[in-house]
């Protein structure tokens, strides 16, 4: 089932404020079904805010514009409704919750989703999160451990559209291969007719994760706007060589 445009996600003129301050100033973005896009941009430019808004977190207030998922306007839907449509996020800084164990969340997913307990057990082993199953969720985890714990939850829910906020940051080189393979699994083929993988959006500063998951397109976010978009390799190369300053110039010229 796909929308008439073939886009799993469309964002039109999205304005978002947090605590009364506008952070996103008219975002336009389209991600075709089966594509994975990369999102780059300097610290504080609004990448996390965009993802949190797509997921529907209430701190991020949409003041104008729409979010269309699979042809349906989801701008007013709750986080639960969005999750159940198949949208998921691995957060950059997920909250810790006292007394709530990662195991309890995975048990919930087993009870409500199609994944079996055995499959989750296997996932847990592969992602090497056994040791924190019975600790408070996200509490006292290292940067790399948080990524793995988040990815296990995403893999267990098998989302149609996964957002990952800096999956490789804080991950050492050895663990990067593990995180990379987990991320890769999230986007495995979900349909044979046509041959197509799952869709998603990945925030990355370094581009390391793109060695494990091929991105179809990259976008650069600057000060709450999408500055430019293009081939991920070209975009990465440009940033590596000339930094974001070049993009700022380019954007100002365009304006």
């Amino acid at each position, binding site marked *: 089932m796909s929308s008439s445009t073939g886009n799993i996600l469309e964002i039109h003129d999205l304005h978002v404020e947090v605590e009364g301050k506008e952070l996103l100033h008219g975002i336009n973005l389209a991600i075709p079904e089966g594509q994975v896009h990369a999102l780059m941009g300097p610290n504080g430019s609004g990448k996390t805010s965009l993802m949190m808004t797509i*997921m*529907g*977190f*209430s*701190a991020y207030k949409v003041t104008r514009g729409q979010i269309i998922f699979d042809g349906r306007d989801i701008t007013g839907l*709750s*986080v*639960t409704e*969005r*999750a*159940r449509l198949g949208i*998921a*996020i691995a*957060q950059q800084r*997920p*909250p810790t*919750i*006292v*007394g*709530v*164990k990662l195991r*309890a*969340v995975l048990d*919930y*997913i087993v009870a*409500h*989703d199609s994944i079996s307990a055995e499959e989750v057990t296997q996932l847990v082993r592969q992602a090497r999160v056994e040791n924190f199953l019975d600790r*408070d969720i996200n509490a006292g985890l290292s940067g790399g451990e948080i990524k793995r714990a988040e990815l296990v*939850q995403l893999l267990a*829910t098998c989302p149609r559209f996964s957002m990952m906020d800096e999956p490789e940051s804080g991950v050492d080189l050895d663990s990067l291969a593990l995180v990379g393979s987990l991320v890769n699994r999230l986007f495995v083929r979900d349909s044979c007719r046509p041959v197509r993988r799952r869709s998603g959006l990945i925030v990355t500063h370094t581009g390391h994760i793109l060695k494990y998951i091929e991105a179809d397109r990259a976008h650069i976010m600057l000060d709450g706007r999408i500055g430019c978009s293009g081939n991920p390799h070209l975009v990465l190369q440009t940033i590596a060589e000339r930094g974001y300053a070049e993009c700022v110039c380019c954007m100002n010229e365009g304006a």
Partner: protein
Amino acid sequence: MAKSLNTVDVVAPDEVQTLADVGVQIRPDEPQVRAGTYVLRDHLPLCVQTYREGLEMMPIAEALRRYDWLRERYYWKLISPDQDEVTRQVAAEAEPQGYFIWVRQGTRITRPAQAGLFISHEGLSQKLHNVVVLEDDTELHLITGCTTGRAVRSGYHLAVNEAYVGANATLTFTMVHSWGPEVIVRPRAAVAVGDHSHYINNYVSLRPALDIQSNPRTYLNGVRATAKYMTVILGSRGSIIDTGGEVWLNGEDSGAELVHRGVCTGGKMYQRGFLVGNARCRAHVDCAGMLLDPGEDGFIESVPGLRSFHPEAQMSHEASVGKVAPEQVEYLMSRGMEEHEAISMIIRGFLDADIEGLSAELDARIGEIAALAGHGERK
């Protein structure tokens, strides 16, 4: 051992369910799950059964007739009849009501004994005097379920509870309350604990009454005696709930830990925990409250306190009151949970945190509170 009709034959099916809700299980295979059962409906003891050698359960009036030493050594010895209005009213009863439970020396009982006390008539007053005696080298887990029939809205539950724990003994007292909305509840409890003995006091209130005051006092008289209190309260609109307790640390190297967890969905809630240090000891009080949609005048007041008479009494307390953080709720919602499921999971975590070795009984009740609280929020 006392003999009477089988408990399943004398308790009506709807009452069996009401009692089950507060942890009192009336069922054919009861001897396999319980060490003994005492059920009081209104003013009438419905059944008294013990399934274990060394454990005696009987109505207090009968026990007073049978055992002179009960009056001499235990009855009204920890609590004075003129302590307050509640004790005066209980003392004024012509024939005292309530249970006597006696565990003879050397008897360690792993299965819980249970006492169900319930009010089946609108506006009825129960005035009870319960005495529990554990001799040396004994162990007992007593579950007391106090409740009102489904249709009952109002009533009075006044109780004097005295418990004596000898040396090398452990008493776990789990009290589960679920009341009609206009019931007034006044237990007055005191426990004396001997050398190397342990007292564990669990109190869970599910359906809050109009007005509850329950602050049992424990005297840790023995060397290395310990007390552990776990109080879990769900408060709702219109209720006044004042719970917690006091521990007097009189014995050398005695220790106490008081934990209070309250979820307020309206009404007034007082969380108490008071320590009196009379010897070298270690003790801590921890009160934590969560305000969940408390309405206009709902509040939680945490009142931990310490009084030290001894320089080597190491006592401390902490208290906090907070709310369910939206980013936590939404985090769980982003995994597909409904809002109320997410809130329940967070409340459950809040209530469970720092409690080890929760009994199955308590665990089930806490799950229930969490589920109720989750639904409360949804509006």
